[in-house]
């Protein structure tokens, strides 16, 4: 390994986004390096999914900029998206297609040449444990398998940045274990951002955590540092609650101050 810092694969600066009059995302800045798994942690409705949609070009931010592997996502979206793999909250599956046809479509869509599709497909299916069901129609699969097809779709082109929105929701414990070890493996060669509200997931998977609340990043550090938050080594869960509650209290204090 060289001793220079690993290359930055995603860098987002000062992203803001409003829907109507409501500001959903406030000045979110993120960086992600190769070989890193970043966990985006937060309550429901904290803005995790919206942030991920912006990072993948599905939603344009009102202000701020995003670079994927050094390419500006807003100015050169086509070039930048070549390096992205994205699993949204609901896996984007064409349910009437067979798994193989669907993954072939996904691979070709991401610009894999015809001759290389078979190899890419075989690798993605092997990684996600889909070898046996390539010929099945997606609608007939269980939720767990559909989720795996969704992940396979996001990694079929070996992207440098993989964005996974709640990848283990709705899976049984054995499947969760498999998917987590897959994400770990992906984190070695590429970089992964995943959103979750499961603290166990963060503990077992992520190198770094960003905690999000009400559209702001309120805490960002390594997973180990979060576990030792405030000098009191405790459980991740308690520290997470302490951080979010402190933030809520601080917000209440400022808004009370504004009122007077």
């Amino acid at each position, binding site marked *: 390994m060289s001793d220079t810092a690993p290359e930055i694969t995603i860098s987002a600066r000062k992203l803001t986004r409003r829907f109507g009059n409501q500001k959903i995302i406030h000045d979110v800045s993120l960086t992600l390096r190769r070989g890193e798994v970043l966990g985006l942690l937060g309550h429901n409705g904290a803005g995790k999914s919206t942030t991920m*949609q912006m990072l*993948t070009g*599905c939603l344009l931010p009102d202000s701020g900029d995003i670079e994927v592997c050094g390419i500006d996502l807003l100015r050169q979206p086509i070039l930048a*998206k070549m390096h992205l793999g994205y699993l949204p909250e609901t896996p984007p*599956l064409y349910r009437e297609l067979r798994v193989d046809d669907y993954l072939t479509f996904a691979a070709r*869509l*991401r610009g894999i040449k015809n001759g290389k599709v078979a190899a890419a497909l075989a690798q993605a299916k092997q990684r996600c444990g889909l070898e046996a069901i390539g010929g099945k129609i997606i609608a007939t699969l269980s939720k767990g398998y559909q989720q795996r097809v969704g992940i396979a779709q996001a990694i079929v082109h070996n992207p440098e940045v993989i964005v996974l929105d709640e990848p283990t929701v709705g899976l049984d414990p054995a499947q969760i274990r498999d998917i987590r070890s897959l994400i770990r493996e992906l984190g070695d060669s590429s970089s992964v951002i995943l959103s979750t509200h499961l603290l166990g997931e963060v503990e077992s998977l992520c190198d770094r955590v960003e905690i999000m609340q009400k559209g702001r990043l309120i805490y960002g550090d390594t997973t180990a540092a979060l576990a030792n938050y405030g000098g009191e080594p405790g459980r991740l869960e308690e520290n997470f609650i302490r951080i979010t509650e402190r933030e809520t209290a601080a917000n209440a204090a400022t808004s009370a101050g504004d009122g007077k």
Partner: protein
Amino acid sequence: MIRLIAMRELRSLFTLPSTWLIFAALQFVFAWFFLARLEAFLEVQPQLAQLANPPGVTITVAAPMFNTIALLLMMLTPMYTMRLIAEERRNQTLPLLLSAPLSELHIVLGKFLGMLVFLIALSASVPLMLYSLALGTELDHGLMLSNLIGLLLLTASFTALGLYISALTVQPVIAAIGALAALVGLWLADIGASAPDSPWHAISPLGRFQNFNAGLLDSSDAMFFVLFTGVFLLLTIRRLHNNRTYG
């Protein structure tokens, strides 16, 4: 990329059993109509032959048949275009296309061309049946060609309108009703307007098709269809772009 999206559209259509059923039923309807039309022609042919300049089989069988197909396509196209974007929204598959390295232009043209190819395949048996008459008689190839060009342009304009309305909503059924209402509305306004210079005649695709149907190739009619199709494709691209802006 455009071809890839078009092929995906076709593949999804042909995995549905209902597509095949409707496909088969329509072939039956087309054949029935063709034979009925032909039989009527054969019955009156002896009388027609006594006229000084008797109308041929192309104008008595082919032209009305093309006109009927045009009407049928007006009703059928919304049933197929409704799914194009509304269903992607409802099933939340749009992020796959939006996060992939392609532009809105690719998505819209891919979907448009896929649907156009499907509708052409659906009505391809009609010219085949009509050209089979060439085995026994002389066809007016000019009239046939102008009808074929007209029908192609007409189908393209229906598809573009249906695609745009599908991009406006999350519910495919609403997209179907909306597109059908727009197309039937334009048609009714056209046939209901009695003044010959009424603007309704100018903006109705089926009204514009009448010249092609009569064998008159008018460049202004052709331009109308190209513009009509182009405008709705551009509006669809805009709508998809707004999707990213407004969420």
